[in-house]
């Protein structure tokens, strides 16, 4: 177990180093001069441009810039947003809360509902219920999330006027205590539903096919032969043994939640990291882009690491087998 743990941890560290380098490279090698943004649209005197370039260390050779970047990262300094005139880490932390408030409830809801649907579908495999449930999850998997978002807004915010279309809180009712929570909940429903639909589909798909593979194993026959109810067979035996792919997909989704947030946040003007990412793109705010990329990728590495450990907890065979190329 200790060996398995150590090798996974070591590998995670290697990946993080790789991610840092990729993050640095994409934002420093690709064309587009950040100095343009700093000096603005007006024609600036060359002296001033040089001064700005020097002030931000943009005149140093790439290798020096990379060294500086890594040294700063080690001190928890993600760089400075040229545009916002604010440290990147501060900016990201400001926005991260909103993204978590959007994503975490949706992911939990999607995981629970997805597994429930999968158990239902696997139980009636090949019959009407299964087709309907599988169909629903396939729809969720294929629908463009930004389009679903638009349709929800048109129907529930514009036509029916039941729910707010954009933002996280109302501007006019600052409210306190429960009022704020209710306000947030009301704003969460539409974007939350969008995200839930997609992840529910992903979880249900994986869980169903994993359960179907298990249903044909001998131990299921044994469980049935013991006289266990179908419900007990499915929930206690089949589901538990098909958990590994399900844990993988859920862990993976948590890691990727930042990515999932981008499109939804854009449509609903949710003030999270996704919106920050999009504004940074159009402004060529390199340090912010690199910071968000870094955060997103490291989140995946951490989620994968936790997933690997959960595997080992769920399945003793993993602990023993060689971890290479798992």
């Amino acid at each position, binding site marked *: 177990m200790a060996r398995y743990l150590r090798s996974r941890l070591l590998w995670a560290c290697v990946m993080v180093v790789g991610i840092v380098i990729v993050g640095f490279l994409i934002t420093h090698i*690709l064309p587009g001069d950040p100095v343009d943004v700093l000096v603005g649209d007006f024609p600036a005197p060359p002296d001033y441009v040089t001064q700005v370039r020097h002030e931000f260390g943009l005149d140093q050779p790439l290798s020096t810039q990379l060294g500086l970047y890594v040294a700063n990262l080690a001190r928890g300094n993600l760089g400075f947003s040229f545009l916002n005139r604010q440290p990147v880490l501060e900016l990201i932390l400001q926005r991260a809360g909103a993204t978590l408030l959007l994503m975490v409830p949706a992911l939990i809801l999607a995981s629970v509902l997805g597994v429930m649907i999968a158990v239902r579908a696997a139980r009636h495999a090949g019959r009407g219920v299964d087709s309907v449930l599988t169909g629903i999850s396939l729809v969720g998997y294929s629908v463009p999330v930004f389009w679903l978002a638009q349709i929800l807004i048109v129907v529930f915010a514009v036509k029916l006027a039941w729910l707010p279309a954009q933002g996280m809180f109302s501007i006019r009712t600052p409210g306190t205590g429960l009022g704020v929570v209710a306000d947030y909940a009301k704003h969460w429903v539409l974007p939350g539903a969008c995200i839930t639909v997609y992840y529910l589909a992903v979880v249900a798909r994986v869980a169903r096919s994993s359960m179907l593979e298990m249903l*044909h194993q001998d131990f299921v026959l044994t469980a049935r032969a013991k006289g266990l109810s179908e419900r007990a067979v499915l929930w206690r035996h089949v589901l538990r043994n098909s958990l590994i792919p399900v844990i993988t997909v859920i862990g993976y989704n948590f890691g990727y939640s930042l990515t999932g947030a981008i499109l939804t946040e854009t449509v609903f003007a949710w003030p999270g990291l996704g919106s920050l990412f999009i504004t940074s793109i159009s402004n060529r705010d390199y340090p912010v882009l690199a910071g968000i990329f870094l955060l997103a990728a490291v989140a995946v590495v951490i989620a994968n690491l936790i997933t690997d450990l959960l595997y080992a907890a769920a399945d003793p065979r993993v602990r023993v087998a060689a971890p290479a190329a798992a």
Partner: protein
Amino acid sequence: MRPRRGIVQGLLRNGAGVASALFIVFLVLVALFGPVIYSGDPLAISDSPMLHPGGSHLLGTDDLGRDVLAELVYGVRVSLFVGCVAAFAATVMGTLVGAIAGYAGGWVDTTIMRIAEFFQVMPTFILAVVIVALLGPGLLRVVAVIALLSWPQTARIARGEVLRVSQLDFVNGVRCLGVPEWRILFREIMPNAIGPVLALGTLIVGYAILLEASLSFLGLSSPDIVSWGRILSVGQRFLFSAWWLSVFPGLAIFATVLAFNLLGDALGDLLNPRRART
């Protein structure tokens, strides 16, 4: 192994598979002959902006008076092109890499799969947005980015299949006949391992179409290219007044992606040896 004929027959028995295959054929026909059937210029700016659907412009017009139906018809080309080319490139790349990893084993396998794992950790969408935003829009660029970020999945599947097939008895039999190793891999093992890879390739088409639409939706496509995602980004600005700018292009994307996913699933059921008897 199963004869080819079985695949066609099996597919015919899968209703959803048939329907989606037919729909994809229809899309291909629209892409090839659409402009002949519906002679609207998708980029022509007319003096009648924001027309409701119906009348002379069947699906209405956008803020510049461009005909939405014409845009949809031309948009098929972009979606199919990006989807198919990206999926093809990712499949070829992934299959080669995965097959070599699975067949060679040892440190080659470990190294390749570690690289694949590294690519899989990359947040695809964020990278795609950053690269396209910084390099500037362009269809081939989008295709390249999508292919570069989707091959590891294929490599994983191909590797697993090659490992499974290479343990079958007939491979040893062929080896005893003195057939060279590369020939065993490409002529004997690959044909028997390719099924799940093809099914995944079909799913990647849908994924690539969705990704292209997302990039265009964020405004990362050139203005002279008609793309479904771009119509949706116009729709976003007029969400409160012009529902048809969102509903129709979104439906087109949805139906197309759904068709490829259904077809991919049907192929997966047929070609995956582990799911053959469900």
